[in-house]
């Protein structure tokens, strides 16, 4: 019966080596006189990693920039992001580790819909700020059940509506097919698309599970339904698989891709690596003409003050790490900026609740082309985007910014207020 004694022994060993941490005397966990420690779960390896693994390093680069320029009321941001491989069961493990062991102040920009759904209830039950989730799922907009969770990027319902209204206007009467990830990410997108596109035009709705990369049956079904336009709510790897499978089946409809799966540089790289074709321009040739949307300024608009600011930070902190200046890096820098905005607003002695209060009070529009929806009763982030076409590996905006709400009937309207310029210091004013 050494077994039971052994269990006890193991637990005692655990007890012996656990006496560290949890002794800091400040009232707010994760905040000291000189630091703010935040954590995140990110897909650094696995199916969602290509492209997305640049986001956390980019956000961290913005934090380093802020830390080098005085921090947030003198406190430096310490950002710990752990790899969850886009696997929900690992997400809960790493988030528990961040909360229980690293004692983080907040979880920031946790990436992925299925992954973050696994931890949002835990974070809310512990009243840990769960801010700017890196997913456009409508699920984060639940102030009554998930009061400590807020979205950031354009939510998939709004995005679906904006893409849908564009398709409705520009592809009148054509046959439309959907290809989407079979979880709340894809389903929300389809909800928005279906609000705008007449039912009679939708000929096929196909989905995929991210663990199964064999999507030829679904693509064959889209081809058999003779869809002339295929709208995809996919992560980048599956956008690339979709394009290559279409090529294999000699099927070339107009592709319309959600922002999350359409970064031209990430896509081009994936296409080249999946097809094992390293000839110059191969990837860009395949992304040519893809219609997508953007809620951050286009990387190509070099006169935009935000792009200038972020290119400077990129050159200093990220270029040495050999990361490309692409949509994912822009995303990371932007969401980092938004966090700093909210932390300044939370005050000189922030508590966990004061960060949530700061966001509930609304944040001024900054990095995005459309304003935020934040209020006490709305935890969605960015409310609009422009439609763009990928040309020669660059997203070229075609038309102005469109905004809408997340209801089935709310109209999609033009937003004509110009984006405010970036602060000259590069740091949001308190």
């Amino acid at each position: 019966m050494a077994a039971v004694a052994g269990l006890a022994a193991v637990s005692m060993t655990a007890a012996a080596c656990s006496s560290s941490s949890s002794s800091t005397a400040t009232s707010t966990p994760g905040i000291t006189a000189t630091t703010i420690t935040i954590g995140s779960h990110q897909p650094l390896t696995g199916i969602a990693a290509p492209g997305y693994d640049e986001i956390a390093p980019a956000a961290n680069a913005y934090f380093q920039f802020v830390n080098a320029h005085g921090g947030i009321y003198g406190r430096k941001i310490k950002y710990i992001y752990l790899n969850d491989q886009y696997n929900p069961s690992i997400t809960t493990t790493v988030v528990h580790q961040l909360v229980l062991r690293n004692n983080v102040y907040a979880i920031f920009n946790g990436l992925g819909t299925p992954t973050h759904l696994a931890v949002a209830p835990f974070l809310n039950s512990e009243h840990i700020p769960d801010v700017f989730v890196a997913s456009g799922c409508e699920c984060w907009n639940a102030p009554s059940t998930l009061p400590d969770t807020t979205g950031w990027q354009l939510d998939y319902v709004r995005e679906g509506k904006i893409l849908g209204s564009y398709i409705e206007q520009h592809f009148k009467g054509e046959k439309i097919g959907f290809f989407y990830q079979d979880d709340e990410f894809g389903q929300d997108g389809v909800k928005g698309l279906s609000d705008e596109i007449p039912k009679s035009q939708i000929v096929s709705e196909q989905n995929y599970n991210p663990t199964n990369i064999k999507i030829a049956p679904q693509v064959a079904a889209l081809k058999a339904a003779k869809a002339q336009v295929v709208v995809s709510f996919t992560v980048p790897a599956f956008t690339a698989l979709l394009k290559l499978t279409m090529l294999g089946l000699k099927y070339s409809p107009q592709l319309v891709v959600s922002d999350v799966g359409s970064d031209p540089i990430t896509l081009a790289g994936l296409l080249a690596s999946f097809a094992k074709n390293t000839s110059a321009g191969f990837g860009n040739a395949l992304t040519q003409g893809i219609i997508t949307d953007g809620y951050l300024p286009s990387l190509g608009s070099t006169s935009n003050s935000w792009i200038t600011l972020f290119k400077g930070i990129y050159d200093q902190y990220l270029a040495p790490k050999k990361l490309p200046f692409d949509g994912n890096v822009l995303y990371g820098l932007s969401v980092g900026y938004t966090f700093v905005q909210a932390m300044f607003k939370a005050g000189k002695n922030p508590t966990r609740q004061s960060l949530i209060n700061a966001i509930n009070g609304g944040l001024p529009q900054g990095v995005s082309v459309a304003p935020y929806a934040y209020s006490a009763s709305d935890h969605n982030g960015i409310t609009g985007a422009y439609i763009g076409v990928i040309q020669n590996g660059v997203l070229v905006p075609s038309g102005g910014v469109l905004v809408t709400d997340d209801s089935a009937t709310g109209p999609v309207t033009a937003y004509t207020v110009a984006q405010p310029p970036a602060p000259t210091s590069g740091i949001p004013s308190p």
Partner: protein
Amino acid sequence: MPTLARHLGIAIVAAVVLLLATNSIGDYRNYQLTELAAFVVAVAGLTVLIGLSGQISIGNGAFMAVGGYIAALILADLNWPLIAILPAAVVGAALAGAIFGVAAARLRGPYLAGTTLMLAVALPSVATRFQSVLGGDQGLGFFVTVPGSVGSNVTLIHWQAWVSCAAALVTLVLLANLVRSRVGRSWRAVRDDEVAAALAGLNVARLQILAFVVSAACAGLGGMLLAMWNESVSPGLFSLTLSIQLLTAAVLGGLGSLAGAIWGSAVLVLVPTYLENLATSHGMTATTSSSVPILAYGVVLIAVMLAFPSGIQGALVLLARVTGLQQLACRAAGPLAWQSRRSVQSRPAAESSRPESESSRPESESSRPESESSRPESESPRPQSQPAAESHEKGTL
């Protein structure tokens, strides 16, 4: 002292120690302890199956999934209390084990291993096939709350550690008694020599099915505890890797030893976190550092198998003997430790050889090259092979 009383006595002491420990080690260690206890339950069941009944399973992760999903479905749809969900998960997994055990009792060696492996590969895809019920890749939530009667100063994680450790202790006591009982002795008889066991009047197939049921029931309970720990069930939680980890833990700890199940589980739970953090803090990239634990498993497994074929528990017993503490060790570890040592040493023979070939096997093995061309002759010198033994030979090719 009667076996049951002794086991209960040790369990009560362990429970007191665990209670004191959980009160002082903080939430993160309790969180790890919950996971550890869940693994102990599942690995203990597997080590009994492999070490005592002599059947190999690479698919016990699938039975954990059965237990976990049953628990999650019951909680979501019927909202039963945890105390009722526990036995439901055990019974559900045991049923699955019984059905599978019937098939397994007909298979031997690598064929059984292959079939159980298939179970581990195939079952997770059931969840994506029936997405509306089982939640697909995203899975189902499994959020338990601390019962009001426990008191408000007990955190959820603290409570989960209690539930998990209590379940592990009960499982270990039951298994310890079972392996010392008539059933346990019969299993060992079947493991060592099926034909002799059958001749002695044991119902081999029934005993083998029973072993599968016990092992699956433990896996189901472990799966339910793992779901509680993870606050969700998803195919990613019960991947093929999990099944292989269970096997690794059982082998590392020492096949057939319940104490070994604890050492093996401890290695499984504590080493990866430690190594991955170490790797990351030494500036390795995510891709590299996420592979480090897998590499470490491989290295540790090879090292342990080379140095201590009877696993960590076997090494501890050996150490105790070398340092002259054998008497003490034997008294503390009891027949279980001895059993594990013996079972592992006799494994190759028990697995692949039958009565008549026990002594001739090594020679026939070494004389393969010469006899390759003359197959008919090499078979003929063993006219005494009985039909039953022949079928076993086929089974273990």
